């Protein structure tokens, strides 16, 4: 019996850059067979990097390598009629089609859901776009920062007097992808009962606005409250903040009074320092948060600046105070905890070499997450898929290549 959760599942991915690729990767990592269909010039992420020594090379983009491990790769010009027919032939033999193209383009190519459903009623078509398949902005153009702008996540990040900040390294695409993978699994479970496929419409802006940002809507409608940006802290109670220390930053949230008291005792060398206990303004942590936060930041600074984040982390955790370091990316990659757990995986790619990659987001006891193959070279599996699966001869393959179709 296979120990792959998604064993036997056939997925075709046809998209650009991040969201469709990460969605299909999540399925490939649990054992689905993913065929990535790239245009002859290759996926956008092949041109994105990071590249070793910053020298662009289509087989060496770190982002492409990360997003596309565990996949077979073919090239196909879907804008050509013959190419399009070849894609349809593949889709007829598949369970899931993941794409992130503009709805208009899919319709122009005859790859809209109604057409695909006529071709194969059991096919699940998963579309990930910035704004979705319906609504007045469906045909708007969008990149990651536009999804997070409309979706509202950016509005809350950054300094209140300055521009809102987009979360780093494509989080709109990440969220679109993981939600799409989950929704696709729901559709697959439904298909186990009904035998029918369906269209899965995931809009990144929708995911931000509802899943990440829906909790505050009640307070707006009934209490007129709008959560604004608040820099390095979150309003509510003090401390709920990120502060500098000797060698970086620490993240300090004390949800409960006893946690804060234990921290003050740590700062005061056993007792709550007098500058705190004697000051009548420092009684109510809610009031402290909106009135005296700057002053408290400076009062804590001398102690914080004397200690490294590691020291603060250890001293706090020994006392069950839930403060943590703000790890740099270097510290994350070298973190003994993550390395002891085997979080990072080394993958040797024939074009790029051996690098450390982020590993499993989850551990399944019976059906492990596994990397079985590195990301495909451009068109690496053309022969395997076109000849062995679709029955083309090598001569035909050469002709198709000559005609710019593969």
């Amino acid at each position, binding site marked *: 019996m296979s120990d792959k959760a998604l064993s036997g599942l056939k997925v075709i991915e046809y998209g650009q850059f991040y969201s469709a690729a990460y969605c299909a990767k999540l399925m490939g990592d649990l054992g689905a067979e993913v065929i990535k269909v790239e245009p002859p010039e290759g996926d956008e992420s092949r041109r994105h990097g990071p590249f070793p020594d910053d020298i662009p090379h289509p087989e060496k983009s770190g982002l492409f390598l990360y997003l596309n491990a565990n996949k077979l790769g073919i090239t196909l010009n879907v804008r050509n009629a013959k190419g399009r027919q070849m894609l349809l032939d593949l889709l007829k033999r598949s369970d899931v089609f993941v794409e992130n193209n503009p709805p208009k383009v899919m319709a122009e190519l005859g790859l809209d859901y109604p057409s695909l459903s006529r071709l194969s009623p059991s096919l699940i078509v998963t579309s990930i776009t910035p704004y979705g398949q319906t609504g007045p902005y469906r045909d708007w*153009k969008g990149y990651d920062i536009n999804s997070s702008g*409309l979706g509202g*996540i950016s509005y809350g990040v950054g300094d209140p007097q300055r521009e809102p900040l987009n979360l780093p390294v494509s989080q709109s695409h990440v969220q679109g992808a993981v939600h799409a993978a989950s929704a696709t699994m729901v559709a697959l479970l*439904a298909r186990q009962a009904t035998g029918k496929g*369906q269209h899965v419409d*995931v809009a990144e802006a*929708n995911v931000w606005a509802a899943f990440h940002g829906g909790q505050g809507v009640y307070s707006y409608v009934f209490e007129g409250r709008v959560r604004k940006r608040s820099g390095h802290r979150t309003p509510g109670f003090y401390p709920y903040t990120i502060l500098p220390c000797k060698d970086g930053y620490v993240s300090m949230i004390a949800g409960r009074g006893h946690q804060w008291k234990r921290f003050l005792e740590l700062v005061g060398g056993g007792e709550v320092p007098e500058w705190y206990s004697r000051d009548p303004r420092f009684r109510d942590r809610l009031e402290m948060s909106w009135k005296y936060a700057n002053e408290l930041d400076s009062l804590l600074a001398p102690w914080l600046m004397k200690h490294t984040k590691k020291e603060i982390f250890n001293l706090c955790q020994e006392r069950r105070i839930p403060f943590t370091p703000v790890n740099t990316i270097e510290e994350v990659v070298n973190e003994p905890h993550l390395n002891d757990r085997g979080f990072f995986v080394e993958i040797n790619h024939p074009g790029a070499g051996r690098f450390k990659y982020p590993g499993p987001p989850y551990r399944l006891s019976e059906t492990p997450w596994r990397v079985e193959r590195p990301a495909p070279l451009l068109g690496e599996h053309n022969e395997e898929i076109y000849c062995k699966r679709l029955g083309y001869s090598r001569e035909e393959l050469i002709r198709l290549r000559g005609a710019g179709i593969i």
Partner: protein
Amino acid sequence: MQYPLRDYRVLDFGWVIAGPLLGQVLADMGAEVIKVETRKHLDEMRQSPLNTSRDPEKDPVFHTTNRNKLGVTVDMSHPEGRLLLKEMVKTCDVVAENFSPRVMKEHGLNYESLRRIKPDLIMVSLPAAGSYGPLSHIVTYGPTVSSLAGLDSMVGYYGERVLGSQGFYADMTSAIHAAFAVLSALYYRNNTGLGQHIEVPQWEAAACCIGEAIMEYTINGRIIGPRGNRHPTMAPHGNYPCKGEDKWVSIAVKTEEEWSAFCNAVGNPPWTSEERFADAASRLSNVAELDEYVAQWTRNHTHYEAAEILQRAGVAAAPVLDVGERYLDPHFQERQIYADFEHPAIGKDIIAGLSWKLSATPGGIRSPAPLLGQHNDYVFGEILGLPQKEIQRLMEEKVIY
């Protein structure tokens, strides 16, 4: 079929954010999700900072993350409470929890114990740092997990101090990663009859979201720090000021075609033809000056106007919306991303809608978040078949509490 997961039952020990959100996703799709609570330790989200009444039945955050669920109250520190919970586990397909790793074990409710009474059980745990490893014991809050995972170290203005993401990103992203894993495990169970345990460490789920930055370090040894809205290959790329107080429009230009569309849309002022902005590489090296010029144009328009002008020209742009604008936005209204209905404790309630649209089996919001213990009678009486007198006794002895 509106509710594709209607044949599945979930016992949801989730509390605060990550666990309840996972249950929310399954409940929206029709699973019968039974939320286990106790009056002894209220879910903190019954008294979140957004709950101005402090009444645990009136918390808007709780109402959003626990809609569509049934609610029971059981004290799991009571031996009889644990027996009751185990009886419930026998009737469930999935058990979900996000306590510290030791809690379920201490109460004899870890996977090893539960699989003995329910061999094909799928159990999912969302600890902060995992159940093993040198830091498995640490105490955290959701936002501090974003700090551990490296995300926060990249949030700040270009070259300035770290501000951090200031939100529950790690909770949210681990919840949806967990949903995918649970649904995949159900798919596998339906094919093979086998259950399993799934661990979703929030730290690791969050670290998977910043793969590009991790690869930048493992490939080139380069540490990405705060870089504001700057992008490695796109310029202009940012949130630019607009007419009105605290209004912004997001703009991103990737190709040369988009650049010339942008120049046309803003009326081709002289700066757009300067050599230092002629191609992407030049724009990236002069990005501070470029951003100032772009802002000169955006300041003359509202954020919606700016987005519409640019979109008409073929440039990616969208207004940056606050919560009120999202609620009123015509696109979001048409997509029904918020839902309103009656809640027994507060009357008219407004909560988040669904993340996605499924054409054939959409799921939906069919009931408000449960009051404390609202479904004790149904769950213990009808599902477990306990006589009313026995339920009464368990309540008096504060097992059901």
